[in-house]
């Protein structure tokens, strides 16, 4: 007569987790390659407008960023709701733009100083007056190559 051994209840084999690190590393490397470091935290509302005739921005080390928009709610009681310029983690006045761009330009390598682009990341509800003032400042210091950073979409999405 055959011998039957009765299986004990609740004796599930453990799922091997040995490959879990590999999976997580895969994810890690994916994110390390497709993303870039955030360099400044935004203190303003920055809803970029849409455009479809776009050109890709140059490499990151050849770009100077200028942000503008309404201060975010947590800064509004201190700075009001009028649109402001943000340069490197600080709110700034229009008159400071020129010095900032010149300082940024001086800090880049010499062969890059002539190919720099100024990227304007401006909220789509900002008034053009502020943007024109920034453009005028950039003209004064001969930083003529600019890029209006936009999101991908048709221009009709800008008009609600």
């Amino acid at each position, binding site marked *: 007569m055959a011998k039957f051994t009765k299986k004990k209840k609740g004796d599930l084999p453990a799922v091997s*987790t*040995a490959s*879990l*690190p590999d999976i*997580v*590393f895969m*994810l*890690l490397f994916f*994110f*390390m390659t*497709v*993303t*870039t*470091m*955030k360099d400044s935290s935004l203190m303003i509302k920055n809803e970029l*407008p*849409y*455009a*479809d*005739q*776009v*050109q*890709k*921005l140059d*490499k990151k080390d050849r*770009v100077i960023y200028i942000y503008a928009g309404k201060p975010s709610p947590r800064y509004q009681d201190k700075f009001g709701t009028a649109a402001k310029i943000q340069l490197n983690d600080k709110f700034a006045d229009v008159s400071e733009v020129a010095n900032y761009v010149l300082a940024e330009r001086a800090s880049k390598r010499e062969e890059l100083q002539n190919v720099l*682009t100024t*990227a304007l990341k*401006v*909220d*789509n*509800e*900002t*008034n*053009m*007056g502020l*943007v*024109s003032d920034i*453009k*005028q400042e*950039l*003209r*004064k210091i*001969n930083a*003529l*190559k*600019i*890029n*209006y*950073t*936009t*999101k*991908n979409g048709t*221009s*009709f999405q*800008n*008009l609600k």
Partner: protein
Amino acid sequence: MARRGAPPEVNAGSMADIAFLLLIFFLVTTTIETDAGLDRKLPPIEPPTENPPVIKQKNIFTVVVNKNNDLLVEDEPMELKNLRKAAVDFLDNGGGTGEKGEPCDYCQGAKSPESSDHPSKAVISLQNDRLTEYGTYIAVQNELVAAYNELRNREAQRLYGRDFTEMNATYLDPKTPDAAKDELKPKLERIQQMYPQKLSEAEPKSN
């Protein structure tokens, strides 16, 4: 002689935790690259000249955006969706002759004497108010650039069988080898010469 046992294995159970920690760190501190936009070149500040060059009224396509984000094109109110077509018609009209007296033999426009003479003479003038919204301004800019790109693409397709925008993107891509760039450059310049981008922006009116 006693056999030495295999060295004890290092416990790798916490490796996943360490990797998760790294992963979460990178997720929080980085952003997915979204940087693309409209490239423009600002005009340099020039000393005021006594005699600004005279441009015939019919060679200027005026676009005015007011503080309520409405468009006025050639003194007529217009919807944004019609702007691209109107700009293409204006640029491609070719009713007269160019700088050296040559007619525009590649234009496919209406050749109306009321509109622009030649693409090389046609100027688009954009004027906005200080209270215009930036989103509207970008939308108008985008439509005007689209009009230029549409005409340039048409000519590039006819001459080289490729789109101008695609050729330009290849040219600007740092990964493109130099030999390919040298080959593209004269082609791009030729197209740009056929439809030069003359987009003038007046200082916004303050009120």
